[in-house]
């Protein structure tokens, strides 16, 4: 099984690397790059909601903070593209830490409501603070990737590879996290905070770590978004984005490692082919969300691995029975 997994992953990475060659259409490259950016954001949500069990409804807000931080740093200061690129996620994480310190003292439902309000406050601030963010008019003129010496990076293909590169690293970090003692600790907290505490786990520290990580991911995604789209408006912190991210995660599989990728790519590309759905996609997303969470809470990925596990278990039972007969 492990051998299979390695092969599958390598195959998909190769596919991703060859995508611009297979599909030299710049529109498709655009959609795929955007998908990668969403995937990074969804991984962030997965860490705090999927692995730690705390549904942060402020996630889109932090995405926007990352995007606006980058946008403002590059358009209103002289610090340059790359310093801004590094600073913006750090700023996002710093704000995330402050909010995490306060919001994580609340439990369960209060946390969801609290973060929902925080998200709304972020939206209001971006929308109303026109002198800083440009309000409804938005922030324009964000620079694209600067040239690395003689290599021009502003072509869609280079941008695609850049985003892919960052995304693969972020996924790798998530992979390392989930398979480590730290990941197991988060899952223990999700399972039962009381039990985790009785096992000597500092739930406060770990929850904060998880939240900080999620905002870091959101910040990175936001930064990439800003340098990719190069124009920002308050709607990127709206509940629309929040629920989009949530849908990608739930459909793909919350609390799974490949869920964010599966869910995001599946929905983004299906929405593309079903363009007429755009305005009414919630008619499908809504029930999808509800049905999946009831009947297959671990999403598509969970469903498929459930199938594999059942097959393995049935094989074991059959083997035992064969042994008994002999």
């Amino acid at each position: 099984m492990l051998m299979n997994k390695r092969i599958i992953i390598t195959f998909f990475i190769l596919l991703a690397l060859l995508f611009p060659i297979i599909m030299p259409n710049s529109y498709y490259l655009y959609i795929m790059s955007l998908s990668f950016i969403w995937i990074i954001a969804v991984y962030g949500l997965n860490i705090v909601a999927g692995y730690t069990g705390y549904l942060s409804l402020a996630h889109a807000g932090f995405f926007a903070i990352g995007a606006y931080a980058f946008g403002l740093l590059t358009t209103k200061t002289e610090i340059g593209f790359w310093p801004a690129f590094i600073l913006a996620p750090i700023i996002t994480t710093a704000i995330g830490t402050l909010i995490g310190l306060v919001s994580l003292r609340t439990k369960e439902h209060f946390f969801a409501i609290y973060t929902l309000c925080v998200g709304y406050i972020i939206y209001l601030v971006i929308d109303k603070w026109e002198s800083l963010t440009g309000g409804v008019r938005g922030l324009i003129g964000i620079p694209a990737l600067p040239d690395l010496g003689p290599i021009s990076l502003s072509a869609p293909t280079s941008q695609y590879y850049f985003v892919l590169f960052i995304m693969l690293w972020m996924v790798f970090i998530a992979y390392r996290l989930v398979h480590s003692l730290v990941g197991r600790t988060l899952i223990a907290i999700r399972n039962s905070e009381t039990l985790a505490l009785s096992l000597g786990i500092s739930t406060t520290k770990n929850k904060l770590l998880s939240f900080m990580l999620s905002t870091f991911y959101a910040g990175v995604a936001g930064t990439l978004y800003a340098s990719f789209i190069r124009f920002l408006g308050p709607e990127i912190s709206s509940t629309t984005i929040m629920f989009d991210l949530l849908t990608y995660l739930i459909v793909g599989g919350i609390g799974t490692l490949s869920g964010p990728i599966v869910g995001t790519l599946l929905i983004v590309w299906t929405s593309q082919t079903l363009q007429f759905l755009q305005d009414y996609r919630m008619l499908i997303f809504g029930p999808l969300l509800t049905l999946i969470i009831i009947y297959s809470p671990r999403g598509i990925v969970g469903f498929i691995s459930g199938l594999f596990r059942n097959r393995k278990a049935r094989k074991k039972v059959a083997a035992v029975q064969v042994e008994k007969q002999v």
Partner: protein
Amino acid sequence: MFNGLTIGSIYSLVALGLTLVYGILHIPNFAHGALYMVGGYITLSAMTYLGIHYVLAIFISLLVVGILSVLMDRLVFHPLRESPPIQHKVAAIGMLLFLEAFAQMLWGADYRQMSTPFDDVINVFGLTVTLQRIIIVITAVTVMILLTIFLRKTFIGASIIAMAQNREGASLVGINTNQVTMLTFFIAGALAAIGSSLTAPINLVFPSMGHLVILKAFVIIILGGMGSVPGAILGGYILGFTESIGATYISNDYKDLIAFILLVIILTVKPQGIFSRGEQS
């Protein structure tokens, strides 16, 4: 100032429904805002497409939304009763998104007017108010009184309170928890529909009309105590007055922030909410 009374009445009605459901299920129904919105649209449709009188239309609306609310419980919350709470939240969000998109598809995204037979302007204590606002307050208060009597004096009402305090104990005593739950959802939906229909002639009907109200309802029940009926009523009026004062003296644009800032302050200082029930065994 009278505005505070009006706004507070609506907030209280919506918060009441939310707190009742939270009381027995310990789930915040994120889809409550959708029920509110559907309530407004049903009343509007009954009036414009079926020519029904405003008051009768409200009755129809509260019935329909009440049933819709019960369906929500049976089809979604009931199957999830043993599942981790995050699933309840996600499921509710799914329903919310669907209902809003559905409303938009059926009725369009425009802001619609609702007419009312109570649009006369009258003079009360030197203040000029529309009759509608008075009706809102009177209706809301009447409903709340009826509800309180129902909860205190009838057996079913007492069952709701019993279940809110101890669900297992209540079923051991022979209370049919499923029926009581359904009734509670019905009441909650009906309250939302009434609130929405009362305020619609003033605040118009549109697909996202539930958003702000529901966020504020959450703030109210956290402030007043999740599951507390008097808390929801009191909290609703307090917020209504605070907002109306804020709108007059600070800024109309930022008055919505008041509720959220209040929430952020309260939960920052007291993460369990103001009236936490302490540790429950």
